[in-house]
């Protein structure tokens, strides 16, 4: 549109820019600096150059294990959760009686998010003699060692996060609401069934939001802390010792803030790279109706 100053956009961004300068930038840069120091919180940080990073890459088995576990976790949880949240959003998008009751019910796990009851409950459900195994038993399956077996424990955390699909679902739901109904009509006439119009109309039109959820779920998965913290504490055998847990332990259990910062910055770079890849790829699959016409 013409007539606007080139800087009008910056005016709308001003809260962000001010906030960035005052509240965000400094701690951000400070943590980067700290990653080059030895800092135990009680004393002034001591600059140690690349020492932290060298140790990290050459002499830290825990880091390697933790990074691997984190990657496995991210690459299983993100797709599963996205698919599940989208599936539920589509189902809950029907105009049914009491749909709002159902939606609320499905959001409950997310509301319970930080509640102390979660750890207790999750144990009830996935313990060796818990509900899930009782159920499996009923339909004739062997019970699964959900927490005790290092190969399963991580997936149990994944299940917890799947169960808390509410936020992603709500975002999908909001996106589904903004799709023009006539497009479904056109598709119906073109012979599309429910599934095909979902694939060809719904999915492409909510790609901006799928993309958003993808990025956010990825970021959140990379920063997953609460799940393993309250349920497995990283065990058994560090099989759920995700990097954020490691960072936290280094920072607030072992008080090596410098080293924690270094791990965090390595993690930052990894997420950044993946995010860049995602943004780059989005040009090919995300459709923005509201962007400039050319």
């Amino acid at each position, binding site marked *: 549109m013409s007539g606007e100053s080139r800087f009008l956009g910056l005016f709308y961004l001003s809260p*962000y820019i001010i906030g960035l300068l005052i509240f965000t930038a400094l701690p*951000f840069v400070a943590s980067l600096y700290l990653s080059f120091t030895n800092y135990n919180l009680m004393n002034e940080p001591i600059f140690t150059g690349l020492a932290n990073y060298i140790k990290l890459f050459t002499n830290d088995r825990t880091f390697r294990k933790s990074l691997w576990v984190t990657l496995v976790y991210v690459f299983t949880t993100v797709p599963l959760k996205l698919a599940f949240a989208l599936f539920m959003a589509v189902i809950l998008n029907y105009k049914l009686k009491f749909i709002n009751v159902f939606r609320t*019910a499905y959001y409950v796990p997310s509301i319970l998010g930080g509640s102390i009851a979660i750890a207790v409950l999750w144990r009830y459900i996935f313990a060796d003699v818990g509900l899930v195994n009782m159920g499996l038993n009923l339909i004739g399956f062997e019970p699964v060692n959900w927490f005790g077996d290092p190969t399963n424990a991580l997936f149990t955390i994944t299940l917890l996060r799947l169960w808390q699909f509410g936020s992603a679902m709500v975002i999908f739901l909001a996106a589904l609401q903004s799709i023009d109904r006539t497009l479904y009509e056109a598709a119906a006439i073109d012979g599309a069934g429910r599934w095909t119009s979902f694939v060809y109309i719904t999915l492409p039109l909510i790609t901006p939001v799928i993309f958003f959820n993808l990025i956010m779920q990825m970021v959140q998965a990379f920063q997953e802390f609460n799940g393993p913290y309250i349920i497995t504490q990283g065990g058994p055998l560090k099989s759920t010792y995700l990097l954020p847990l490691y960072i936290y332990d280094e920072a607030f259990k072992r008080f090596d803030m410098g080293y924690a910062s270094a791990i965090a910055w390595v993690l930052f770079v990894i997420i950044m790279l993946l995010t860049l890849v995602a943004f780059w790829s989005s040009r090919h699959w995300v459709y*923005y109706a509201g962007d400039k016409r050319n």
Partner: protein
Amino acid sequence: MRAREMRSHRLSMAFRYALLAGVGLLMLYPLIWLIGASFKTNSEIFANPGFWPENPTLDGYIKGWRTSTPYSFGTFFLNTLWIVVPKVIGTAISCTAVAYGFARFEFPFKKLLFASLIATLLLPNVVTRIPQYLLFRDLGWLDSFLPLWVPSAFAGDAFFVFMLVQFLRAIPRDMEEAARVDGATTWQALIFIVVPLLMPALISVCLFQFMWTMNDFLGPLIYISSVDKYPVSLALKLSIDTTEAFEWNRVLAMSVLTLTPALAVFFLAQKYFIDGISSGGIKG
């Protein structure tokens, strides 16, 4: 409607409801357990895994409400309110404006600024916590609610900004253009056209911010030290010690109370997802 259609329609409806209810129960299980347990006596809570209390008691609620502080739980609710309300309002306003700026305008350094926005999402905040604390100490904001909501009022929650940007970019510009021709400034177009069209997303933003702030434990823990300023998230964990016995049923009872506003708000926000204003509402 024909009888056959009626019947198959009813069948598919019944199936849908059954499915929804079945899965819904799975989702609700913890809440039901929680509510049940909050009426149990302490010794029963872990001995009896069922929902139904053997000797239902209101003890948890009565004693839990009193708390081990000079204040009742009501005070903590009010404190939470004083954090949540400004934070949600501030977030909604600032994030909408910033998202609008990103989605609808071209300006110098746009890419860089957007990258900075995303970048702030990516760094685990464990390692920025101390520097941030020192910052607020120097601002003299410790032991006040300011550190808890002021950054949000400056669009500090990149998550929401990014989310609104994505939604905005999916909304066609026609209506805004019409408004501009009608004499609206960009600001007015934002308020009168964009905001209503963005409502479902905006409601989600408010909802999330509300829930997350209600649940936020670490922020208040670090920044609030006076007991009379504690929000519920802190108050809930006030009596949980590793070695000392504590009254589970009080904790659970208060947890139930804490969840109620979130549930109510979510339930009420429903209609914005149902009657969401569709961006292409005109048919021929």
